[in-house]
């Protein structure tokens, strides 16, 4: 499969990048590591006229500790760098653990945190070649009008399958978005729409530039559990991130988030309230697992049956909560 022809734009500064975006936003895709975009372009899921390559903008890279206000991570920081950051491992362990599970070592070398946050939603009926998609009559997300996983509806259910966003949601991370009109900072949970097709709130002429990890969620114990068939390479079929802070044997604060079972990564509603102030035990962990399973809405977008994936959300959540409390 050939890569469609495009014009490659290689700005050296963020300002130049925004300039390109301003001009060509309607017909442009942004590339960082390229591990998600390039295969999709070969499958003709995207055939943009311009591709904006961010890799030569140094200001978008790096992990910086800010006095009394947490840590900033440049969107272009590689997943390998996050995985190996001693600072992040010490203060935000859930993020390094999640980053370490993404795909395989070579893909983590290329892939970036910004790319993982912006990862296109995935579905077996969508991530296929043009020829294949002709055979299935296309789908709502691309060129068609039928959702094959939920045939009666009009909504796209392609699953968000990034590993780091549930960890970032647990950490109450913010993201910085820069566009021609300037920059804004929003909580990561507002970055996603919950729709499988138009899954981000970011505008076509905007760029995700930085991730902020707040001081308030530093030093929480953290656990990420990922369901996959192989121990490497695979996207999550279900994923659970948990962060927890304890004091005097009680849970002071905790959050639980899911990935790969909804069109967006989601915080499990009610989990924090359920856990706060309690002493961890099996029954509590199971109760949180039940909450998580109710939040998950897996469909036939990937391998394994939805019923099994929902069940694993229950088991993995229970285990992750217990592990976070034991850390």
């Amino acid at each position: 499969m050939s890569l469609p022809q495009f014009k490659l734009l290689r700005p050296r500064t963020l300002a130049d990048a925004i300039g390109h975006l301003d001009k060509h936003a309607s017909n442009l895709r942004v590339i960082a590591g390229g591990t998600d975009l390039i295969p999709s372009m070969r499958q003709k899921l995207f055939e943009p006229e311009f591709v904006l390559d961010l890799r030569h903008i140094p200001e978008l890279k790096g992990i910086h500790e800010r006095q009394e206000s947490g840590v900033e991570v440049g969107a272009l920081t590689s997943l390998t760098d996050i995985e190996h950051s001693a600072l992040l491992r010490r203060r935000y362990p859930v993020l390094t653990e999640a980053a370490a599970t993404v795909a395989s070592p070579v893909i983590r070398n290329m892939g970036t945190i910004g790319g993982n946050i912006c990862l296109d939603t995935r579905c077996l009926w969508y991530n296929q070649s043009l020829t294949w998609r002709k055979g299935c009559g296309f789908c709502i997300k691309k060129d068609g009008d039928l959702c094959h996983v939920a045939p009666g509806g009009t909504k796209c259910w392609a699953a968000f399958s990034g590993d780091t966003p549930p960890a970032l949601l647990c950490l109450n991370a913010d993201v910085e978005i820069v566009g021609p009109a300037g920059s804004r900072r929003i909580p990561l949970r507002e970055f996603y729409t919950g729709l499988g097709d138009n899954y981000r709130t970011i505008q076509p002429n905007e760029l995700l530039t930085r991730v902020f990890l707040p001081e308030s969620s530093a030093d929480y114990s953290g656990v990420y559990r990922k369901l996959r068939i192989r121990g490497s390479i695979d996207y999550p079929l279900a994923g659970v991130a948990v962060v927890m802070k304890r004091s005097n044997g009680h849970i002071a604060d905790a959050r639980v988030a899911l990935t790969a079972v909804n069109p967006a990564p989601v915080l499990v509603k009610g989990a924090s309230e359920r856990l706060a102030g309690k002493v961890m035990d099996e029954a509590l962990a199971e109760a949180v697992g039940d909450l998580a399973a109710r939040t998950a809405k897996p469909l036939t977008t990937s391998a394994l049956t939805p019923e099994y994936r929902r069940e694993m959300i229950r088991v993995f959540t229970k285990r992750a909560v217990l592990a976070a409390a034991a850390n």
Partner: protein
Amino acid sequence: MTNDFSIIGKPIAMVDAAGKTTGSGKYADDLSAPGMLVGKILHSPFPHARIKRIDITRAEKLDGVVAVVIGTDAPNPYGILPVGHDEYALALDKVRYVGDNVACVAAIDEATAEKALELIDVEYEVLPAYFDPEDSMKAETNLIHDNKPHNIEKDYHHVFGDPEKGFAEADQIAEARFIANEVTHAAMEPHCTLAAFEIDPQTGKPGRLVVQSSTQVPYYLQHKLSLVLEMPMSQIRVIKPLVGGGFGGKSEVIPLEIIAAIAARKAKAPVKVTYTREEVFWAHRGRPRTIVDLKTGIKKDGRITAVKARVVQDGGAYCSYGVVTILYSGALLGALYDIPNIQYDGYRVLTNKPVCGAMRGHGTVNVRFAFESQLDELAAKIGKDPADVREINLLKPPCITVNGLRVRSYGLPECIEKVVDRSGWKQRKGKLPRGRGLGIACSHYVSGAANSIIRSDMPHSTVNIKIDRDGGVVVYTGASDIGQGSDTMVAQIAAETLGCSLSRVKVVAADTDLTPIDIGSYSSRVTFMNGNATLKAVQDVKKQIASAAARKMSCEPQELTFRNDIVTKKKGHVGADAPVRPAEQSSAASVSGRVEGQILRGSLQQKRKDEGPKDSLSFEEAVVAAIDFHGALSGTGSYAPPLEARGGKHKGAGVGPSPAYSYSAQVAEVSVDEETGEVTVHKVWASHDCGRALNPVSVEGQIIGSVWMGMGQALTEEMVWKDGMLMNPGLLEYRSPSSVESPEVEAIIVESIDPEGPFGAKECSEGSLAATIPAIGNAIYDAVGVRLHESPFTPERVLAALRAKKNAKPINLTEGVDPTAPAKFREHGGSLWYRGKGPERHPLDPSRREAPGAAGGDD
């Protein structure tokens, strides 16, 4: 036979290893030719449709397009089996699966060719399609091939002994349906073919066709090209470059190989076609998903009394190797254990899916999974150790099995003994902590088929050898090295026999212009058959060298030893030979004196004079002597399996017989997570009787590779279908195991020294695969007490089985198919077609059945 070898039995690096690891070696897609065009193939989006019209004019007009070819450009049918000529390079009247080949564009680059594919207008009339083999067998109309009633490609019904009597004698009988889902080879190298017509140097017209292709079978390719292109075989040259794995997926003529040639013919330019990974999955020829209804009877003492198997294979849209596959499935119920009574009913069924063919362990694997699982159940029923039960049922070779298979060397007893011993089976089985278990299983495979598929009396392998005055040994073999190491095997046999160093031997392989016919690399035949042909060819030349050297050393040829590049008289003969030496020496001198223009002349002759009478000659000296004495020094050898190994007389008896069988026993240690159903394989002890390990490191590699591939089929690999659409046509979603899940494999070589194998060698590449799947299944049973009847044992299947056993909260984890008692194949969820929306499909197509659970919809 002495073990005192200098090259055989030594761990030797493959002769092409560095070329591959450094990237200097050339695979088909690395090749190019001046003026080469890129070919891209248009595939059918429909599972079953009549082609009413194809209009290629718009595509032809696109800038950069040189030629567009369709079915009528090469309308002769072909197929790998003489009884299965049902394929066309490009569809003539019908397409029969999503991915079937419709047209090919040859253009200046890939992007242009892809663009042109979009401009080919094809008008189809959709037909009802068949996806499930048991549904397909009921078909009365709209048959996939008009001459195959009920869409049955072939069925066989064999009875050996008296099965009813056998079951009557049994104390325990087990009966169950096993389902093995479909797997494919997933070789690293996608198929690629470069086809070019040479300009005839005399007439200037397009002349001979040269095809360089990733093939396991250059000779069959040459033959089928001749058939389809209506050219004499002598006008076609097939060259096999390095091949990056075959596993059976390149063991027949794959559509792109012929398509590239017809495109090159029309474009009047070289054309290269390389499959995308998705196209590799569509070309497929992998292991069919299989239903095995199996019944086995056993006596309290552990003796198997009878086996009855009904096997239905979902073969896909064309015959391919199907007739052979369904026969192997029955025939190889024999030759592993002593089974006195066998009934076999095999059905190879056509469906509108990509074509199944030969895959590592061809025909045996799925039935072996069922049989070894059932034997485990029966052992439990009679309260015996499953390892003991296997030992109780051993054959007593030499023998001929009830279904006509001749067994001579038989290392299975030692294979079982070794894995039982090394794994600590007797001490640990049944005593591991909960969730952890051990399982045992055995398997076997042919060392080549005793009867070739082309039904000819010609030798299966012929090898030529040439040695020149430079002392270089060139072996011309048709054997196709596809990564398994046949070039190295040939070089080792030549060097060992001639007593020369390996670096002296150059192997010219798999080029139909240069190398004599060999029927190819499949059914694990190469070491046994091509190795034997090599041995004969080398012995032929060695005889000539020995007779000349003996003259020079004034002794008898049989007194000579060839080793380490020196030909010496055996000790003990020296004294007796002494008196005749002076005369011999002068004759030797005069012989060497006639060496014109050779570097040997001055120094060697002088050296010889200085040293006086010799008890040894260097390899070069011996060669020079032989050439001077005999003229050209060349030899030839061929191999045909012995008549007595060719099997019985019943219909279908031709498949299964082999001159020798390899044997394997394996113990797997697994743990099962009872909350998630995830299975971890910790270690596999795998012993394999390969006759003699010509190259132990290579044998170990094959054993480890077989276990790993078997583990893929056991746990993760599965082609997932939905109404004829392959849902996972890529390596990301197909999920062969990665290095992370690969357990330690303790490869144990057992050498039974086959009386007919070259140096006693048998096959080592396929026989170990089949044991891995039931060994893991049996280990799961030992760990958590559930018997999986459906492979692969994915976590959801294992969990569903655990839930069913515990009568826990019912939860539909496997879409209605209970993996402990599966009735039918499972399709992927969701819906291809819904209330008038979706792809065009015939009203009777299964995709248009309104699925009861196809709701979903908005929140």
